[in-house]
C-alpha cells in the first residue's frame, strides 16, 4: 500500500494569491493513497523542507508530491530533501502549480481547480514510480570554445589559466572577431587593437590553448562531461605549420579583386591574403573563388615565391574528432542586413554606410589609412548625419524588436572622435532615446553633446535621398515639433545587431534552446545567466543577448568559471531516467537507434523461446544506460511500444492524462 504525502507551496503570494492552497491540500488529501497533505508558505525553505522530512519519517511515506514551481526550479531540491529523509529521490513528483497555473490565471476558482487537477495527475504518476538509482560517468578534462571573438578569447584564456586544455574553433581565418575591426572603444577611447591583440597573442602562446581557425563544427554527440565533436578544418590551401606570414605571396598575387572582409568589403584584397596585420594565426589563406590557379590551373605564382613551400593547392577539408567535457558557445553577432530599410538608401548611395563600416573608415589600418573620407569620391565629409536604431526596437517586423544596446554608446563615440579630429565637421545624430546606463557611460555621452557640440535630434528619419550631390536626410525633430532636412555628405546607420546565423545550427547540434530572436536561452535569466539549460553547454558573449565589450568580457569570465567548476570534477552523476527496451516486444527495426541523438542504442542477437520447445534468434535493441540522457525520442519513435523511459513511462504519462481528463 502506498503512503503518499502531498505538500502544497504558497510560494509567498506567487501561488497563494491566485490558488486557494488550503483547499488544494484539503481536496488532495482525499485522493486514494494520500496519507498526509500540508501547505506551507515556502516549501523550498529550510522549514518547508524540514516539514517534508519529518512527514516522510513520521508517516513512513513511500512517495511525495510537491505542488510548487516548475520542476526545473526545485525538483533537484526536493529530491535531495527526500533522499536525506531516507526516501528514494525518484519517488518525488512535482506538480507545477506556479508557471503552469497561478502565474497564468487571474480567477482564483479556476486556478484552484486546475491546481487540484495537476496535483491529481502528479499523484497518478507517482503511484507508478519505481525507485531509481543513477550511475556515474567520467569527465573529459578539456573544453571547446566555439567562436574566437573577444568572448571566446576571454573564456578560453580563463579556462587555460585554470590549468585545463581548451580548443578555440573559429570559422574565420583568424581569431579576433568583430572587436578586431573596431577603431576605438568606449568609454575610455583606447584603441581596440591595442587591447585585443595582446590577448590574441596570449591565446596563441598559451600551451593549454589550441586554436583552430577557418574551421567549423560538423557534429556534436554525447553529453555533459563526454562530448564527441567533429570539427571540419576547411582547406586554406596553405600549410599552417610552414607559413611564416611573410606576406610575399600577397604582393605577387595577380588576382586582386577579392572583397576585403576585414574592411567590410570597402576595398579589395588579393586571392591569397592574411586577413590583417595582427591576425592569429599569422598565416595566409587562399580564396578559391578568386585564385587563378584553383579556378583554371593557370598561375601558381604564390607557390613559386613561397620560400618555405607552404602553398598546397591540393589541400582538402579535413575532419577531426575530439572529446570535450564542456562546450562554450561564443558565436557572437553580425549587423543585420539592411534590405528592409530602403528608405535610408544603403543599397543606393555609396556614402550611406553602417557604423561598422565607419569603424574601418576611421581605423588607421583601414582602407583609407585612418583618413575619414567618403567612399564615393574619397573627399572629406563636411556634414555627417547618424541615424540610430536602424532595425532596433522595431516592432514593424522589418527589424528586431529588441534594443541592440551598444549603438547609443558607439554613435556618441563616433561623433566625438570625428569632432575631435575634424573640428570643422558638422555632426548630427537622430535618436529615439539615448540609453547610456553603465559606469562612466552617461558622462561620456554628455561630453559628446556638451564639450564636442554634437547636434542630437530626437526623432526618426523618414528617408534619405540625393539632391545636388548631397544626401538629404529628412526626419522629424520632436522637441521643436518640426520636419527637418539635413543636407549631408555622409550618412551613418547604426544597424541593429543579431546573433551570428551559424548559431542556429550549433544550437541544434548541442541541443541548446534558442529564443525567437535566435539568441541562446540561458538556464535562468537571473540566477544562471551563463549556462544553457542543456548541461555542459555554456554561453559567452552576444550569442546570449546584446552586450558591449566590458559586459562580454565579464560574462566570458563567468562562463569560464562555470566550465572550470565542471572540469574540476572527476565524476558526474548520470541521469537515472534512462530508456530501456522490452525485448519481448522489440522487433529490432532500428528506428530507435536512428533517432537517438546520443548513440546510446545498439543491437544484439538474443535467443528467445517461441513455444514447442523451440527457440529463435532475434535482433533486439539494447540501451547503454551511461550514455542515454533520457530524452525519450526513442519511446515515441518505437512503433511497437517496446522502448520506454524509466521515470516517464508511457503508462505513467497515460495515467497523468487520464487523471487530468477524469471528471
Amino acid at each position, binding site marked *: 500500500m502506498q503512503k503518499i504525502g502531498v505538500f502544497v507551496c504558497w510560494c509567498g503570494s506567487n501561488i497563494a494569491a491566485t490558488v486557494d492552497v488550503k483547499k488544494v491540500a484539503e481536496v488532495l488529501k482525499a485522493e486514494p493513497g494520500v496519507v498526509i497533505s500540508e501547505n506551507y508558505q515556502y516549501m523550498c525553505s529550510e522549514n518547508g523542507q524540514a516539514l517534508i522530512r519529518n512527514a516522510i519519517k513520521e508517516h513512513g511515506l513511500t512517495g511525495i508530491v510537491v505542488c510548487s514551481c516548475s520542476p526545473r526550479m526545485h525538483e533537484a531540491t526536493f529530491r535531495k530533501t527526500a533522499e536525506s529523509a531516507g526516501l528514494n529521490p525518484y519517488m518525488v513528483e512535482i506538480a507545477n502549480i506556479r508557471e503552469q497555473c497561478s502565474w497564468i490565471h487571474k480567477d482564483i476558482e479556476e486556478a484552484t481547480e486546475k491546481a487540484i487537477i495537476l496535483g491529481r495527475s502528479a499523484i497518478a504518476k507517482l503511484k507508478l514510480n519505481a525507485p531509481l538509482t543513477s550511475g556515474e560517468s567520467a569527465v573529459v578534462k578539456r573544453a571547446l570554445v566555439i567562436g574566437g571573438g573577444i568572448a571566446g578569447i576571454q573564456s578560453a584564456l580563463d579556462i587555460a589559466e585554470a590549468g585545463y586544455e581548451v580548443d578555440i574553433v573559429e570559422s574565420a581565418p583568424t581569431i579576433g572577431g568583430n572587436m578586431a575591426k573596431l577603431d576605438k572603444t568606449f568609454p575610455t577611447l583606447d584603441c581596440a587593437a591595442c587591447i585585443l591583440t595582446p590577448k590574441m597573442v596570449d591565446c596563441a602562446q598559451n600551451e593549454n590553448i589550441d586554436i583552430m581557425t577557418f574551421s567549423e563544427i560538423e557534429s556534436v554527440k554525447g553529453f555533459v562531461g563526454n562530448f564527441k565533436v567533429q570539427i571540419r578544418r576547411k582547406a586554406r590551401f596553405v600549410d599552417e605549420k610552414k607559413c611564416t606570414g611573410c606576406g610575399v605571396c600577397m604582393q605577387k598575387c595577380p588576382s586582386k579583386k577579392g572583397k576585403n572582409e576585414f574592411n567590410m568589403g570597402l576595398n579589395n584584397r588579393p586571392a591569397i591574403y592574411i586577413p590583417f596585420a595582427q591576425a592569429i594565426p599569422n598565416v595566409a589563406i587562399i580564396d578559391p573563388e578568386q585564385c587563378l590557379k584553383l579556378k583554371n590551373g593557370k598561375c601558381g605564382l604564390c607557390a613559386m615565391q613561397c620560400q618555405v613551400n607552404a602553398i598546397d593547392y591540393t589541400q582538402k577539408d579535413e575532419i577531426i574528432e575530439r572529446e570535450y567535457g564542456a562546450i562554450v558557445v561564443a558565436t557572437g553577432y553580425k549587423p543585420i542586413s539592411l534590405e528592409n530599410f530602403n528608405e535610408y538608401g544603403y543599397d543606393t548611395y555609396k556614402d550611406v554606410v553602417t557604423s561598422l563600416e565607419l569603424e574601418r573608415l576611421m581605423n588607421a589600418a583601414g582602407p583609407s589609412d585612418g583618413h575619414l573620407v567618403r567612399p564615393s569620391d574619397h573627399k572629406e565629409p563636411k556634414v555627417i548625419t547618424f541615424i540610430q536604431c536602424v532595425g532596433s526596437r522595431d516592432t514593424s517586423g522589418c527589424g528586431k524588436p529588441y534594443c541592440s544596446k551598444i549603438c547609443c554608446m558607439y554613435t556618441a563615440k563616433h561623433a566625438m572622435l570625428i569632432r575631435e579630429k575634424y573640428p570643422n565637421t558638422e555632426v548630427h545624430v537622430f535618436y529615439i532615446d539615448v540609453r547610456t546606463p553603465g559606469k562612466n557611460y552617461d558622462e561620456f555621452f554628455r561630453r559628446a553633446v556638451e564639450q564636442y557640440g554634437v547636434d542630437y535630434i530626437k526623432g526618426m528619419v523618414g528617408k534619405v535621398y540625393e539632391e545636388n550631390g548631397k544626401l538629404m536626410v529628412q526626419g522629424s525633430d520632436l522637441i521643436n515639433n518640426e520636419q527637418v532636412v539635413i543636407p549631408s555628405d555622409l550618412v551613418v546607420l547604426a544597424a541593429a545587431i543579431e546573433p551570428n546565423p551559424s548559431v*542556429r*545550427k550549433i544550437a*541544434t*547540434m548541442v541541443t541548446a534552446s534558442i529564443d525567437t530572436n535566435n539568441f541562446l536561452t540561458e538556464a535562468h535569466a537571473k540566477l544562471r545567466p551563463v549556462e544553457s539549460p542543456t548541461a555542459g553547454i555554456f554561453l559567452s558573449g552576444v550569442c546570449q543577448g546584446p552586450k558591449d565589450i566590458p559586459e562580454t568580457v565579464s560574462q566570458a569570465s563567468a562562463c569560464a568559471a562555470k566550465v572550470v567548476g565542471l572540469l574540476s570534477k572527476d565524476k558526474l552523476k548520470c541521469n537515472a531516467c534512462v530508456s530501456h527496451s522490452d525485448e*519481448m*516486444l*522489440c*522487433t*529490432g*527495426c*532500428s*528506428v530507435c537507434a*536512428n*533517432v537517438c*541523438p546520443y548513440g546510446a542504442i545498439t*543491437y544484439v542477437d538474443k535467443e528467445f523461446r517461441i513455444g514447442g520447445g523451440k527457440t*529463435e534468434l*532475434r*535482433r533486439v535493441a539494447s540501451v547503454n544506460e551511461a550514455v542515454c540522457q533520457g530524452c525519450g525520442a526513442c519511446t515515441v*519513435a518505437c*512503433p*511497437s*511500444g517496446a522502448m520506454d523511459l524509466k521515470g516517464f513511462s*508511457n*503508462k505513467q504519462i*497515460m495515467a497523468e492524462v487520464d487523471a487530468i481528463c477524469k471528471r
Partner: protein
Amino acid sequence: MQRLKTAMIEKATALLTSGEVSKVLGWKKGELGFDVEPAVFTSVDSLVDFTYDAFCGANLSKYLVEESKKEGKILVFLKPCDSYSFNQLIKEHRIKKENVYTVGIECQGKVDPYKLKENGIEFVTDASETVDTVTVNGKEFKKEEIILGKCLTCTKKLLSYDDVISFNEKREPSLDRFEMVKKLEAMTADERYAFWKDQLSNCIRCNACRNVCPACTCTKCVFDNDNSGIASKANSDSFEEKMFHIIRAFHVAGRCTDCGECSRVCPQHIPLHLLNRKFISDIDRLYGEYQAGEDTESKGPLTNYTTGDVDPSDVFGGK
C-alpha cells in the same frame, strides 16, 4: 504474360534443381480463376500450381519475414510495388537478406476482382492481357476500367535484384496518386470528418489491413498488447474504435511504401490508403520527395533529423 510466367517457372525450376534455393515464394492458382493466393513451392513437381497472371495483386514481401527465418534459401518473385516493401523490410532488419534470392518481374497492373463482379463475371475460365487491355472469358476490358485502385496510380519501377525477368512492357499510370488527397485537403474540417466517419464506420475490425501491411510486422502489435493502453482504449463512442486506422497510419508513416495492400484487402472497400497517402504527401512537402523502400540504407525523413529540416508550421501555418 504467358511468356513471363514460362520464364518464371523455368527460373524456379533451374534454381530448385541446382539446389541454390530450396523453396519458391510465388502465386498459386485458385478455383475461381481470380482467387490467386501467395504460396510457397518446395519442389519442381509442385510448380504445376504456380501461376503468374493478371490476378496476382498480392504483395509477397511480408511473407519473407517468417520464411527467411527458416532454413534454406527462398526464391521470391517481386513485382515493382512488392520490391519497395521488400527493401523497407530489409532496412528494418525484418528479412534475412542472405536467405532470399530475389527476381524482379514486370507488371502492367492487376485486375480488381470486385470490378470483375460489377461487370457480371463471377469466375474466370480464361484470361489474357496486353499492356493496355485484359480479356476475361472472351470479354475485353481496358486496363483503366478493371485494374486495382493501387495500380491505376502506380509509378513504381523495377529496382535491383539478384535477377530480373522483363520484356520492357511498362504501363503508364492513369491517375495522379494525390488527386483524392488534394480533394480531401480542400474540404473543410467538418466535411473531412464526415467523410472519414462515414468511411470508417464500415470497418468491421477484421484486421485484414494490418495483417497484410508490410510495414506492420511488430512482434506484438500494440492493438494486441493489453499493456499498451491502446488495445481497447475507449469504447464509449463507437467512432473511437475506428481511431485504430488513424493510429495505424501514424505507426507506418514514413515507412509506408504506398503498396496499396490495405485498400485491396479491405472487405468493406474503405479507401484506407488515403490516410497513408496524406502522410506521404505531407512528408514530400516538408522534407522533399521521399519514396520509402526505394533503397535499403537511407534514414526515413521522420526518423532522421537534419539542421535543414523545416518547422511544419512554416509550411502549413498554424503558429
